[in-house]
């Protein structure tokens, strides 16, 4: 008996993400508005900051039928002063899935390389309108494309292309797309997102004009940028079989000793020798001739060898303590602030840095719980707080140990930057609980909490010292007075000498 079998079919990546658009944050009209703004703003940041440009980002969301409730058609326009995109790449960069500038080993805001294209796809399937992209790299020309996505083939369709003179040598990118959405519902999260973005990126100018014509301006407070990330080699601790196989396929090294030094992060001659000895491979073995089991053995050895240097931060772009402090002071105006940048660390070979700030008093509202601001690669996370590892850690800490009681005005800012943020979901809102990462977060939080604890206890100690001296002055005369009365004596004992001695004793 032969059974009629299933029908098989291949689909394109664009089709896959079209069918599963909710997984990238386009689950409903309110969320779609939020996600579209966020994805385009992140693209703008990535087109400016890493290239040394102070970001100027202008966002406009407009609608012809504002005032009615519920879902309607919006036009979203985002303009930046970034590096621009070379004309030939524009159609692919915006209208083809899995084509991006972000598939590299350095920190960038978007890590799936889907965001912008996903927003355009969502706009297309809800409005059937093309997207307009205007860009220049600062050359003599400005290019304007009118594009749609061929979803079944995962290819851009170029509907129109115009070229303008660029006398002013403007550089940047403008994206304008139509989409169905529900701004009334999305508004609180959109504004929270922009406000927190301004905290973590105090070197940016951000302007937002909303569909009701209201203007939100977040102005630049510092004019130095964080150090831009550099592309880096993979760290041996983070290498899996697939990565190693790919490197073997392309290497020109003839010996494992060269191979280790050439292709891995922070591996010098000495380290390579010690490692190969540990792993039990001859130094002169030809990497191309490794058998599959030997590749596995080499990967295992890389994971287990403790002698590698930890990854350095050059591929990362943390805020730095100065900018973090500036952002906190600007926004929260606290009585006390402490910040820390943890040493670079790595999970599964992905380097990351945790930065933590604490703020006490000032504009921080007193609350039962500590107020938590979460950032990943400088992006604020405004959804799903309670599923985040940061939240779990904050809740697990015994704050009393640091002299903090419920009801005190304390805010914690946690920023994790990495070449690969360990997201819990594709929605990029919750950080997963990786032991290496949560250890750094915990230690960072403890470090700033200790500083705050020290501040609070010093404040307390000064108060107490003043009280001590006043105690002698107050109570010794009382003891003299009443003991004299009890003893039936007329004369109260002379305690001047004792008081003088007590004071001296106190001061020593």
């Amino acid at each position: 008996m032969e059974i009629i079998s299933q029908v098989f079919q291949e689909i394109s990546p664009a089709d896959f993400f079209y069918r599963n658009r909710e997984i990238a944050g386009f689950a409903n009209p309110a969320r779609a508005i939020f996600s579209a703004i966020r994805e385009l703003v992140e693209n703008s940041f990535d087109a400016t900051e890493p290239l040394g440009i102070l970001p100027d980002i202008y966002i406009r969301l407009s609608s012809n039928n504002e005032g009615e409730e519920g879902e309607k058609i919006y036009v979203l326009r985002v303009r930046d002063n970034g590096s621009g995109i070379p004309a030939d790449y524009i159609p692919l960069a915006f209208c083809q899935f899995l084509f991006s500038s972000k598939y590299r080993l350095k920190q960038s805001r978007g890590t799936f390389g889907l965001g912008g294209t996903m927003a355009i796809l969502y706009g297309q399937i809800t409005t059937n309108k093309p997207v307009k992209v205007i860009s220049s790299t600062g050359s003599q020309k400005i290019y304007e494309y009118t594009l749609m996505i061929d979803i079944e083939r995962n290819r851009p369709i170029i509907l129109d292309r115009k070229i303008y003179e660029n006398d002013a040598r403007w550089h940047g990118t403008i994206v304008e797309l139509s989409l169905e959405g529900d701004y009334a519902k999305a508004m609180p999260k959109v504004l929270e997102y922009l406000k927190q973005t301004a905290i973590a990126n105090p070197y940016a100018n951000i302007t937002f004009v909303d569909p009701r014509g209201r203007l939100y301006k977040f102005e630049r407070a510092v004019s130095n940028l964080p150090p831009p990330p550099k592309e880096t080699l993979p760290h041996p601790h983070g290498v899996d079989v697939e990565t190693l196989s790919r490197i073997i396929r392309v290497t020109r090294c003839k010996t494992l000793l060269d191979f280790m030094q050439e292709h891995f992060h922070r591996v010098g001659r000495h380290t390579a020798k010690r490692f190969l000895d540990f792993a039990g491979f001859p130094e002169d073995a030809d990497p191309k001739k490794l058998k599959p089991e030997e590749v596995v053995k080499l990967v295992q050895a890389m994971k287990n060898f403790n002698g590698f240097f930890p990854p350095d931060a050059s591929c990362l772009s943390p805020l730095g303590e100065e900018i973090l402090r500036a952002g906190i002071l600007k926004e929260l105006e606290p009585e006390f602030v402490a910040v820390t940048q943890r040493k670079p660390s790595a999970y599964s070979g992905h380097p990351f840095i945790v930065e933590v700030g604490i703020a006490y008093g000032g504009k921080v509202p007193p609350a039962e719980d500590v107020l938590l601001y979460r950032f990943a690669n400088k992006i604020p996370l405004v959804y799903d707080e309670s599923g985040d590892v940061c939240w779990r850690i904050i809740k697990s800490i015994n704050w009393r140990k640091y002299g903090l009681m419920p009801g005190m005005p304390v805010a914690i800012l946690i920023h994790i930057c990495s070449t690969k943020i360990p997201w819990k979901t594709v929605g990029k809102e919750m950080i997963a609980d990786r032991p290496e990462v949560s250890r750094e977060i915990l230690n960072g939080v403890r470090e700033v909490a200790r500083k705050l604890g020290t501040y609070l206890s010093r404040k307390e100690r000064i108060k107490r010292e003043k009280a001590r001296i006043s105690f002698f002055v107050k109570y010794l005369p009382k003891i003299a007075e009443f003991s004299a009365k009890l003893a039936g004596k007329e004369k109260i004992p002379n305690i001047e000498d004792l008081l003088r001695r007590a004071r001296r004793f106190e001061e020593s």
Partner: protein
Amino acid sequence: MRRVSLTAKEKRREVLAKLEKFGYDLYDQLERGILPDIIMPSRSIDNIYYSPELRQYTLGDKKIRRSASNIRHLRPIAQLVWMAYFVHELTASQKTSTLRDVFYSAQAYDIPFKNQDESDDIITDLETILGCTREDFNVFPEERSAVFGDLTIEYTIPNYEGKRLNLTSHPDGVMIGPALTSAEFIETNADKVIAIEKGGLFTRFIEERVHERFKAILVFLGGQAPRSTRYFIRRLNQELGLPVYVFTDADPWGMHIAMVIISGSANAAHVKELTTPDAKWAGVWASDIVSYKLPSDKLEDIDVKRLHELLRDPRYKGEPWQREINTFMRIQKKCELEAFSRYGLTHIVDKYLPQRLKDLGE
């Protein structure tokens, strides 16, 4: 230890002398240019022992030292000296005061207490140092209990000195306050004391003429008895030689009311004149719930927890305590004194009381 038969006037004179000596010790140290200190028995939990001889909790040999050179001790020492001064005035002028009054009075002398707990604690310190009770220096609590029965007393307080009163003169019961606490016992025909936890039953006993039928002085405890009442019961026992029977609810709390009268509380381990070691807990026992088929409630978690605590308590070593605790545990029930009402209002007096007194060898 002070003699039991000290008269009120002698007692007062002795208390005043102790207070004056306490003051003089401090005065003397200051005069010699020394930051003064005070040494007294420790009241911490590791210095409280159950004394099988005294049959009550008592303090061990551990002493603590409060020194004015220690910043944390300055304030308590000042409070203590003031307190000694204040109660000296009180006792000398034969006036009484409540714990609450003392707390407020301190403010006039600019030695305020943070709260009443603090001032109560200093009074306890003074008791410990002097070895006498706060009632000795005329500080009384708010709670009022009462007594009824054929006992003639003679007042010692101002304006009533020499006046006599028979304690059957007011059938609602005579309040045990400062005047009665300090009165002398003149004459009685009673041959026992019956102490009762609840007011309703106290009235019932009076109405049923228990004082006549059983030749008893009846004492109303009002729950956990105030110290002045415990002292009063002790005097009835020691000065008049009357046996004491205590009736409480049948639950761990009622049992403990009786125990505190008999062997004192850990809180009052520093004073030695509040207990009546020969008093007997006469009921209601756990075993009565079974044998009298009394209406009962299930023990609650907190009751059971309390029973386990009592099991470990050295005061509860002997009988009837062990037997009754075990019965409670077994039947998991408790009941109140009023539960006898299910057999009619007079049943407790007509049947239960004579039987129980007989059981106890009366």
